[in-house]
C-alpha cells in the first residue's frame, strides 16, 4: 500500500543521519564522503577521538549528575506532591500555580541571573551547581500530585488505624502505589538531563565537571577545523550509553513518555 511505503520511507529518512554517523565513524576519513561498500573498516577514529577528549571523565560526570538530580527530584517532588494532593493549607492553590510557572520559565532561560547566584554560593564549576536549579521539578511535582490523588482514601485510613503518622502513610501507602509514575518520570528526567547543554556549558569551567554534551561541543568545534571520522566517532561514543539503553528498553521509554503526557 502507498501509505506503508510512505511510512517506511519516512522511517528510513529518519534513521539516515544516525546511519551516516556510523558509516563515518567506522571508516577512514577518505571514505567519510565516499560510499564505497568495499571500503575498509577501522577503529582508528575511535582511538583518536578517545585521545582528543576525556570521554571517560565526561561520562562519569554525566552519570553523577543525572543520578544526583534524579535522587533529589524523587525526594523533593514526592514531599511536595503529597502536600498538594492531600493537605489543605492556606495559599495552596496559589503555591501550586507558582510551581507551574517553572514549566514555562526553565532555568536555562535565566542563565544570566542563575550564574550569578551560583557564583555567590561558590558552586560554579561543581556538579552540584549544575544540578541544583533542577532538583525541584515542577513536572515531577505535577505528576506525583496527580498520581497521589488517585490513591483511595481507604488505604490511608487503614494505615492510620495501624498507627502511622503522615510520613509513615506516605512511605507505606502512597510511594509504593506510585511506582509506575516514578519509573516513567525517572526515564524522562534522565533523558532530559543527560542531553542538557546550555546551563551546564555556562556553569562548568573544567574537565572535572563537564558532562558529555559540553565535552562533545568543545570536541566538535576546535579552532583548527574538524575531521569527520573523528567527530562521528566521538559523537557516537557520547550517545552510545543512552542509545543502547533506549534500544534495550524501548517499550519502557515510550510508555514513560506516554504516561507523562497523559497526565
Amino acid at each position, binding site marked *: 500500500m502507498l501509505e506503508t511505503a510512505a511510512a517506511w520511507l519516512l522511517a528510513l529518512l529518519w534513521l539516515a543521519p544516525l546511519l551516516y554517523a556510523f558509516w563515518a565513524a567506522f571508516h577512514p576519513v577518505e571514505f567519510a564522503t565516499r560510499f564505497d561498500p568495499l571500503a575498509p573498516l577501522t577503529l582508528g577514529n575511535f582511538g583518536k577521538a578517545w585521545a582528543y577528549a576525556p570521554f571517560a571523565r565526561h561520562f562519569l560526570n554525566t552519570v553523577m549528575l543525572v543520578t544526583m538530580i534524579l535522587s533529589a527530584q524523587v525526594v*523533593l517532588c514526592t514531599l511536595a506532591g503529597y502536600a498538594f494532593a492531600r493537605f489543605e493549607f492556606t495559599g495552596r492553590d496559589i503555591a501550586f500555580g507558582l510551581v507551574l510557572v517553572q514549566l514555562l520559565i526553565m532555568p536555562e*532561560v535565566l542563565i544570566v541571573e542563575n550564574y550569578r547566584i551560583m557564583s555567590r554560593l561558590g558552586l560554579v564549576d561543581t556538579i552540584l551547581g549544575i544540578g541544583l*536549579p533542577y532538583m525541584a521539578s515542577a513536572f515531577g511535582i505535577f505528576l506525583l500530585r496527580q498520581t497521589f490523588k488517585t490513591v483511595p482514601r481507604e488505604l490511608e485510613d487503614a494505615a492510620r488505624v495501624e498507627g502511622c503518622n503522615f510520613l509513615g502513610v506516605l512511605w507505606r501507602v502512597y510511594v509504593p502505589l506510585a511506582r509506575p509514575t516514578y519509573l516513567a518520570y525517572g526515564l524522562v528526567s534522565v533523558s532530559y538531563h543527560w542531553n542538557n547543554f546550555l546551563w551546564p556549558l555556562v556553569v562548568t569551567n573544567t574537565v572535572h565537571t563537564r558532562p558529555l554534551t559540553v565535552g562533545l561541543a568543545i570536541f566538535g568545534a576546535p579552532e583548527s577545523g574538524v575531521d*569527520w571520522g573523528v567527530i562521528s566517532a566521538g559523537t557516537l561514543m557520547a550517545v552510545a550509553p543512552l*542509545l543502547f539503553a533506549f534500544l534495550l528498553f524501548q517499550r519502557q521509554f515510550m510508555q514513560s513518555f506516554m504516561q507523562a503526557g497523559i497526565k
Partner: protein
Amino acid sequence: MKHVYGWLLLTPAAILLVGFTHYPAAATLWDSLFSTGTVVHPSRFEGLGNYAALADDPIFWRVLGNNFWFALGTIPTSIALAMLMAIWVNDRLPARALVRMAYFTPTVLPMIAVANIWLFFYTPQIGLLDQIGAKFGVASHNWLGDPNTVLACTMAMVIWKESGFFMIFYLAALQSLSPELEEAARIEGASRWTFFRRVTFPLLMPTTLFVLVNATINSFKLVDHLFILTKGGPDNASSLLLYYIYQVAFSFFDTAYASTLTVVLLLLLAGLALLQFQLVEKRVHYR
C-alpha cells in the same frame, strides 16, 4: 496542624523553586534597569535606558524575527508530522515496532550530537546533501553560508529531532480512543479523511494543546545547535534570542543588556503560553 505539615512538606522544593525560578526572574527585571558595572565604569541606574538601546539594536530585531520564523516553521510542521506518524504507527503496519523506533530515536540524542552530524550534511560539495544532489545534477549550494537558506536548514534539523517526541503523546491519546467510533464511522460509509477531520482531530485537541505549548517553549529554548553549526551567522541570519543572550552575557560581559533581553524573552514565553491556552481552550473537547 495540617496547615503546618502541608507547608513543611513543601518547603524544600519551595526554597529551590523560588531560588532558581522566581527570584532570578525578579532579579533579572531589576538588573535590566541598571547598566553593567566594571571596575573602571561602575554600575548606575538607567531606568528604561536599556530598553531604548534594545529598540535601537538591529541585531535584536533580526533575532526576534528569526525566532518568529523559526517557531512558524517548526511548530505546525512537527505537530502535523507527529500526528501522521502516530496514526501510521497505531495502525496495523508491517514492521511497526521498527518504524516506531526509527521515528523516536532522534529524541534520545542530545542536540549537540545531532548538530555535529547534520553539519556534515550541509557542508558544500563534500557534504551528504550536495553529494546526493550531484547525482541528480543539482549544483552544490552553501546551505549554512547563505542567509536565505540557513534558517530553513536549522528548522529541518529541529523538526527531525522533535517530531518523534510529539508522536509519543499522540500515540498515547490515539490508544485511548474507543475503537467503536471507527467501526461506527465505517458502517456509516465515512471516508478515512472525513473520519480524521470530524472525529479524530477534535478528540486529539487536548494533546494538541499540550504539544503546542511544549513546542513553543522548545522553540525558544533550543539553541544548542547554533554553537556547532553557525554561531548565529551568517550576519545573525540564524541567531536566536537565547543564543544572543548567551553571547551578550558571556562573550561581551554586558550582563545588564543580557538581563534586558531576558525580560523580553520571559514576556514572550508568558504571553504566548497564555494566548495559546485561550485560543485552543475554546476548541478543546474534554471527555
